Every structure is written in structure tokens, then in C-alpha cells.
């Protein structure tokens, strides 16, 4: 394996961590928005309690991914920055409003009106941001990030490539995955049974939404993202991969149904992880299909080697620190 391929793998790994951790924080915001019934306030309080100590650390995975992208694959970063400018700008606005509103709600005083106002901003931003992130991923998968000639006009260059049914379907799918992860995690965070039942129901609903949106995206992938579709359906590893993903998906739902929440969490995380890696694998060796390969986009070897060294040293500091953070605030993880 070349240093560039290894680095691309680490980049996917950073995205992977972001999806499983940061994605669930966004999903928490979705459940804040959808909180309902007699335990509405308790549901919201649980979400806030669950993401409060960890969301900033979880968010750094995205920053790490971006830094690795612009350091190790600068042409890919350049192209994404231009072609995906609008959805990425939307992601940024969403990230800013989500994080700020969450902090403002936590420290803005206890008046109900204030809480509701910031809660609303937090929740809506949590809903919109994953959709836009998914749109970017969908556009990359469909190979539409190849920069159109600037002379074609603003819409053709900056809007049409990502405003497609397929990209939007991937956006909805991303949202469903994040909400699903969050609801499954929250069944383990909840201390009392009724609250746990609430999130069990939410998780089951979100699990169905994952199925529906995945089917929709695959359906639309036929014309929109042939490379990915071929990778996901027709290559040699496709069948075992599909079977494994499906098995984890079914396991997650069955485990939720049977109230085996630890199993459900493991299966849900495995399912989403396989989907992410399946996407990455299906477009290998391209970092931006249909033409920019990992090797072509890679920075000079000197940079790649130094960054790999930095990552190795950084991991020695980072991983124990993260383990400590989660042991302090997520003791249920060890059960």
C-alpha cells in the first residue's frame, strides 16, 4: 500500500469517527426537535446531558478530516471548495448555529422562552447540517464535483452539480443514519424505563427511515452514481458486503425490539460503519470520481510521511484522552 492510499484510509477513518460520534450529536438535535409526549422535557434534557461534555471533542474529527484533506490531497480540497462551495457554506452555518445555540441554551439562564428559542435553533441546525453533509457526499459519489467550465454560468457551475435527486437522497439517508445512531445510543443513556422506551420507539422508526432512504438512494444511484452502484452491487466483494450490512441492520432492529440495547448499539454502529466504508471502497482508487485518483491528488511524499508520523504520535496522546473522556461521561459504555 502506498503512503497516499494509507493516508486516504486514515481520512476515511477520521470521517468514520465523526459519523459515529459527531453524527450522533447531530442526531441528538433531531430528537430534540421531534421531542413529544408527556416526557418531552425529559427527552430534551437527556439529549443535552448526553452530548454536553463530548460534542466539542467529537466535532474535532471533522476538523482533522479537513486538515488531512488539504494537507495530503490539496487538489481534491481545491476542487471541493469551489464546486461544493454552497452546500459546504450551508454546513458551516449549520455547525456555527448548532454549536453556539447549544452553548447559549446551556448557559443562557433558565427562562423557558430563552430555552425554547435556543433549543429551536439548535435542533433545526442539527437537522439541516447532516442533510447538506450528505449532499456533499452524494455529489462526490456521483462524480459531479468535476469543475464545469466557469463560462457556463453560476447555476451550472455551483448549483446544478449537487442539486440532484440522488445527492438529496443521500442527504436524507445521512440524516436518518445520524438520527438512528443517536436514538440507539440514547436508549443506553436513559436512566428510567419510560424514557428508554421513548427512544426505543424513536430508534425503531429511524431504523425504518434508514432502510427507506437507503433504498431510495440506491434506486437513484443507477443513473446518478454508476461507479458507486457498480462497486456496491456488482463487484466481487459486493455480495458479502451487502449481506454483512444487511445482517447488522436486521440485528440492530431485532435487538431494539428485544430490548438488547448493547447489542443494538454495536449492530447499529457496525451497520453505519460498513455503509461509510462501502462508499469509500466503491470509489477506490478515486478520491473524487470520475477522474481524480488518490495517487494524482496526493501531496509530495515528504509531506505524507511527516503527517503519518504526526498522526502516529498524535494518536498516542489522543486515544487515551478520548478513552478517558468517554469513561468519565459514558460509564454505560463499559457495561
Amino acid at each position, binding site marked *: 500500500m502506498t503512503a497516499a492510499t494509507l493516508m486516504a484510509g486514515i481520512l476515511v477513518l477520521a470521517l468514520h469517527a465523526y459519523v459515529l460520534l459527531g453524527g450522533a450529536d447531530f442526531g441528538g438535535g433531531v430528537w430534540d426537535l421531534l421531542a413529544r409526549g408527556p416526557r418531552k422535557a425529559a427527552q430534551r434534557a437527556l439529549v443535552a446531558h448526553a452530548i*454536553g*461534555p*463530548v460534542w*466539542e*471533542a467529537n*466535532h*474535532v474529527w*471533522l*476538523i*482533522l478530516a*479537513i*486538515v*488531512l484533506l*488539504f*494537507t*495530503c490531497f*490539496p*487538489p481534491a*480540497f*481545491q476542487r*471541493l*471548495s*469551489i464546486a461544493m*462551495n454552497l452546500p*459546504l*457554506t450551508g454546513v*458551516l*452555518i449549520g*455547525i*456555527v448555529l448548532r*454549536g*453556539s445555540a*447549544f*452553548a*447559549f441554551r*446551556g*448557559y*443562557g*439562564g433558565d427562562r423557558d422562552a430563552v430555552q425554547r428559542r435556543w433549543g429551536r435553533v439548535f435542533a433545526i441546525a442539527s437537522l439541516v447540517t447532516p442533510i447538506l453533509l450528505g449532499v456533499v457526499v452524494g455529489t462526490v459519489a456521483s462524480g459531479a464535483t468535476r469543475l464545469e467550465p*466557469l463560462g457556463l454560468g*453560476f447555476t451550472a*457551475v*455551483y448549483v446544478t452539480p449537487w442539486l440532484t435527486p440522488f445527492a438529496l437522497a443521500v442527504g436524507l439517508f445521512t440524516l436518518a443514519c445520524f438520527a438512528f445512531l443517536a436514538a440507539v445510543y440514547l436508549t443506553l443513556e436513559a436512566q428510567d424505563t419510560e424514557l428508554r422506551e421513548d427512544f426505543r420507539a424513536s430508534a425503531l422508526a429511524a431504523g425504518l427511515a434508514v432502510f427507506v432512504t437507503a433504498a431510495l438512494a440506491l434506486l437513484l444511484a443507477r443513473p446518478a452514481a454508476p461507479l458507486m452502484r457498480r462497486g456496491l452491487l456488482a463487484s466481487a466483494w459486493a455480495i458479502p458486503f451487502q449481506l454483512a450490512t444487511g445482517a447488522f441492520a436486521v440485528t440492530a432492529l431485532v435487538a431494539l425490539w428485544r430490548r438488547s440495547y448493547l447489542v443494538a448499539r454495536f449492530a447499529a454502529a457496525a451497520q453505519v460503519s460498513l455503509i461509510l466504508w462501502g462508499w469509500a471502497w466503491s470509489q477506490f482508487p478515486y478520491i473524487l470520481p470520475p477522474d481524480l485518483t488518490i495517487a494524482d491528488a496526493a*501531496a*509530495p511524499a*515528504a*509531506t505524507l510521511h*511527516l*503527517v503519518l508520523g*504526526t*498522526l502516529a504520535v*498524535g494518536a498516542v*496522546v*489522543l486515544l487515551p*484522552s*478520548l478513552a*478517558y*473522556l468517554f469513561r*468519565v*461521561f459514558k460509564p454505560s459504555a463499559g457495561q
Partner: protein
Amino acid sequence: MSNLVAARFQMGMSLAFHIVFAVVGIGMPVLMVLAERRWRQTGDRVHLDLAKRWARGTAILFAVGAVSGTVLSFELGLLWPGFMRFAGPIIGMPFSLEGFAFFTEAIFLGVYLHGWDKVSPRAHWVAGVIVAVSGALSGIFVVIANAWMNTPVGFDLVDGRPVNVRPLAALANPAALHQVIHMTLAAYTATGFAVAGVHAWLMLRGRRAAFHRHALTIALLVGAPAAILQPLSGHFSTGSVARHQPAKLAAMEALFETRAAAPMTIGGWPDMDARRTRFGIAVPYLLSLLAFNDPRATVQGLDAFPREDWPNVPAVHWSFQAMVACGVYLAIVSLWAAWLARKKIDPDTRRGFLWAVVLGSPLGFIAVEAGWMVTELGRQPWVIYGVLRTADAVTPMPGQLFRTGVFALIYVFLAVVVTVLLYRQILRSPMDTGEFPGRTG
């Protein structure tokens, strides 16, 4: 407004907004851990109360800082794709290191803010120390990347493309050391005085003296030494800028003519058409002395550079003057504080001193903003000094003015909310609520 100007305005706005929170993220953890340590040593709950209050303020500011920093890391590409394509492999290294430092900072700030009852007292304090150290490191790595833009090294330029990239050499670029020292001291000065000013003001308003006196002491303990060292660091910076970025120095000093025994001009109106600075107070020999440690040394003026390579001289000159004025004022107040401490005089009995601290409260941050104006505007028209012009790095995407407007609205909105929330936190001083139990030893 052209796309380039709009993009520059937007980048400047994002930096000016974020730097406030970045500075607080470096300074506030030091204040928190000092207060917590005093509480552990003395058992005086005033200090515990202080640590918790400061932590609440830090929590709000850190959240906004984390997300506005994310905006910047994307905007490097969204606004300057040409720059990142060129610079990414060369200065990605400090950004990666910053990523890890920021990770550590976020993790242990989570432990610090939410872990008062969940971890041992010692672990809690250590978490605070880690936040303080990694916060400073985050800032240092980003400043190193910026310093490289001023003194780009670690690559060879062939046909406008970097080859033979040496990231470690880029890391050790000539401007890195002086910029890192200057900015780190500035962060402690700005935070220390901002906090000290708030508590001095509350003391003047007759609020609970003991509480605010302790707060004032800790804040000045952080801010004053840094403020006293800052002029020395500034002198060190001047020497480096004179050698490596002479056009920037000429703009800072509004020096149009290359000359020996150059004077330093205080104030003054740079007349761009006449190519001379009017109405300034010229201090003979001072510029040569400060730049080269030799009163007769020759200093390059703007005439040594083609007109199209000049930065905006009045903006750079006045920003520089503002920064120096703030810095000198804070250094003097710091010496005053040191003298009071040495004489063991209670600051509560020196209203003049308290007013001086109140007046200094915003000046550290004004100096930080002005200083960044100097280094960023002073580098123009280059984004990478002497290598890549800002105009050649800007995004081809039209409509940047609209984008700038959207982000301006967001920043103004966030600034107003943060100000209101912090104001409320400050007003919740202990004597107002009666929650303050006093010494329990």
C-alpha cells in the same frame, strides 16, 4: 466591491471574530486553574467560586470559538482555493499538530467543565492544566502556519509550483519564533486585563471587595507579566520584520524613503500622492535603532518596492500605532500593579489604579486586532509573501459580497448574544444573589 475585496473582507472578518475566542481559549484556562489551585491550597471558597464562574464564561466562549474556527479552516479553501492548493502540503503539518492540540483541549475542557463531581480533585485540576497547555499549543501551531505566509521557506519554486517540499523547514520559518512569542504574550495580556478590568469596575462600584480583589489579583498575575515582557518581544519582532519583510516594516512606520538613521514617526498622515508622512512626530534615530540595534543603520522605505507591491500604508501604519499605544499603556499599568504588590498596598485603596485597569480592559483585545491588521494587511498584496498574490489565490466563484453579508449578520448576532450572556454572568456576582458562603476553611 470586487470579488477579491469581498473575499478579503470576509476572511478578515472571520479572523477578527475568531481571534477573540482563540485568545480567550489560551488565557482563561490559566485563570481557572490558578483560582482552583488557590482554593485547594487555602480552602478559601472564594477561589472555588471564581474558578466556577470563569469556567462558565469560558464554556460559552470556547463553544463559539470552536465553531468559528471550523469556519476558518473551511474558508481557507472556500475563499482561497489557489492558496491552499499551493500551501497545503507545505504548512499542513502545523495544522495537523494544531488539530491534535485542539482535540486535547476540547476533551479536557469537557472533563473540566462537566466533571467537577465525576473525577478526583487532582484529576480535575490536571485536566485544567492540560486545557491551558494545549490551548497555548493550538495557538502556537496556527501562528507558525501564518508566519510561513510571511516568510515562506521549505520549498523550491519551479514554474510557479512548489517542488522539493520540506515541511519541517517550513515549520521553522524565520518569522515563526517572534510571531509565536508576541501572540502568546498578547493572549495572556488581553485575557488578563479584560478580566481584571471587569473586576476592578465591580470593585469601584462597591461590590464585594474580597471576591473581586482575589479575582483582580489572579487576572493581573496572568496579564501583567506578559504585558511587561511584550515591548521586548515587540522589539525582537521589529528586528525580524526589518530583515525578512521590509515592505511591511516600511508601511508600519509610514517610511516612504530609504534612509540611514531613520526616525520613528508617531502618529501622522501618510500622504500617498506626495509620498511622505505629514503631521507625524519624528523621533530621530529610533527606527534604525529598534530595527537593527544601530542608530545609523539604513532602513528600506517604500521607495525600495514597486508601487503595486505596497500594502495599504495608512491602514497598516495606524493599526501599528494603535497596537503599540495599547501595549505601552498596559505595560505601564502592569508596572504600577507590580509596584503596588511590592509595597503590599491594597488596590482597593487606590481608585486611580482601579480606573486605570478598567480603562485597560478592552485595550489588550484592541491591540490583538490591530496587530493582526498589521501583519495581514502589511503582507498584501501577497497571500504568500513574494510568491503568490492574493488576487491569484481567490475563488473564481462570483457573489462573494452576498456571502460576506450573510456571515457578517451571523457574527454580529453571535457577538451580541455572547456579550449579553457574559454581562449576565458578570452581574450574577455573589453579593447580588447571597449565595456566597464566605470562608469555610
